[in-house]
């Protein structure tokens, strides 16, 4: 059965870049969200067993999404995909419950490495 995946980024081209970089043959049903609020709505609608999450976004940013997920003990596999490559940004999102961090521009091999590490493919 296809895994519900939500790709969260305010930039349309960035969402496209992520979707293009998904490993071929990974069976997912993709939902796109433009900000954190839409991401949480997608989660609540059962569309985000896996979430690829940008950090810098208007309305609600990626850190706030992680805080919400943590506070409400929501269960989704979050991979942060961000241009903010500071080591501290990576530590912070992992403390907030993100499973992995991938830097932009995203490459298929980086996504594959994360998915393989956690047995998702």
């Amino acid at each position, binding site marked *: 059965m296809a895994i519900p995946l939500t790709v969260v980024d*305010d*930039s*349309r*081209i*960035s969402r*496209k*870049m992520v979707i*293009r970089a998904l490993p071929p043959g990974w069976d997912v049903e993709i939902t796109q969200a433009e900000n954190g609020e839409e991401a949480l709505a997608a989660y609540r609608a059962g569309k985000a067993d896996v979430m690829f999450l940008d950090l*810098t*976004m*208007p309305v609600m940013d990626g850190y706030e999404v992680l805080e919400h997920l943590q506070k409400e003990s929501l269960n989704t596999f979050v991979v942060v995909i*961000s*241009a*903010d*490559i*500071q080591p*501290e*940004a990576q530590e912070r999102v992992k403390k907030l419950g993100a499973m992995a961090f991938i*830097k*932009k*521009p995203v490459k298929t091999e980086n996504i594959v490495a994360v998915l393989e590490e956690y047995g998702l493919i």
Partner: protein
Amino acid sequence: MSVQPYNEDQTDALQEVANIAMGQAGDSLARILDNFVTLSVPRIRQIAVHELADTVTTMVGDEEEVSAVRQAFYNSLRGEAIVIFTQSGADELAELLGYDCELDTAIEQELLLEVGNLLVGAILNGISETLGTELGFSAPSLMAERAPLHQVLAPDQLSWEHALLVEVNFSVEKHRFKSHLLMFMTEETIETLRGILDEFMDDF
């Protein structure tokens, strides 16, 4: 010469390229300041030179004086990058960089130039890597010290009539340090960049 504004996709692509480049610049800044740097969502505007001061004042605020460093860039894209430091942030720079001695003006200026150059270099490298273009840039020069923002961005300070403005900003948590990086690209470059962005989007 009038310039056709970028469409939504071109603006979106430029914003994402600026975002990737800003991430690299923010990381360089975080390393030298040994602090976490908070990044902004990049802002893109096409403006005439007489609108510039008002536009940037809305972005930066005008509660305090600023210091500014400028650098030209060239090759495939031509324009100018200006780094604006709010004065309280500029004053804090030495402390963040670990200087504990009495500072004279020459050292303060050198720090502004050094940090300005670091940010501009990182952002231009980020843009040229992402878009696969060549960019060179000049040495930084001090544009203003402890001056009102309107004065810094007065039309007679600038050599263009109409430009594309890209703004990103960097602030340091629990500190006053804040800087804004503005990139101006002139009319010819707006068209060149439009083509480069279209090609970039075709890849996805």
